[in-house]
């Protein structure tokens, strides 16, 4: 039963991790790609970590909860990186499917050059 639960958690976690990266690879522009990883981190890794908690806690060596810390870390950091990336992208006027909000772009910036490399 437990093993069942574990297996499910593991596969689900891995699956979401995969999907996150898939989104990163597949989606059309930077801003949409940005969504993929943010999810992968939350649910994917989250599920895997819960699995690990269960796994190690049930091996008779007492509770093992420190994986939760990793999750905590990710929950705090991932959104920040996402935000910064988006901010940077807007600053660099990275190509976007959705019309970017004008005020978000530096007025001084020269609109002709495409951002990045």
């Amino acid at each position, binding site marked *: 039963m437990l*093993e*069942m639960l*574990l*297996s*499910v958690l*593991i*596969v689900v*976690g*891995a*699956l979401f*991790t*995969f999907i*996150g*990266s*898939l989104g*990163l*690879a597949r989606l059309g522009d*930077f801003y949409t*790609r*940005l969504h*993929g*990883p943010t999810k*992968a*981190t939350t649910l*994917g*890794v989250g599920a*895997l*970590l819960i*699995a*690990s908690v269960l*796994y*190690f806690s049930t*091996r008779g060596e007492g509770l*093992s909860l*420190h*994986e939760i*810390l*990793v999750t905590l*870390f*990710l929950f705090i*950091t*991932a959104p*920040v*990186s996402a935000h*910064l*990336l988006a*901010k*940077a*992208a807007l*600053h*660099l006027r*990275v*190509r976007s499917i959705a019309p970017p909000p004008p005020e978000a772009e530096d007025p001084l910036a020269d609109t002709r050059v495409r*951002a*990045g*490399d």
Partner: protein
Amino acid sequence: MLSIAVSIAFALVSGALLLSLFRLLRGPDKPDRILALDTLYINTIALLVLLGIHLSSSLYFEAALLIAMMGFVGTVALCKYLLRGDIIE
């Protein structure tokens, strides 16, 4: 059964690794690459957690924890560079 699940998971995570890698190498924009790097870090965490379960050893936890921290710092530094050029000002 667990082992099967783990191996499936390994396959999936490795796939994720490759996909992020593709984005990292493909670009096109610097933010894309940074995002890919960040994702790569997170995939690695997943990989490590799996490895921990696979070898049933908790020695890999710190590595995961550290990756979580370091990935963040790296991303922030790179973004700051894109935004301001001078990252410690």
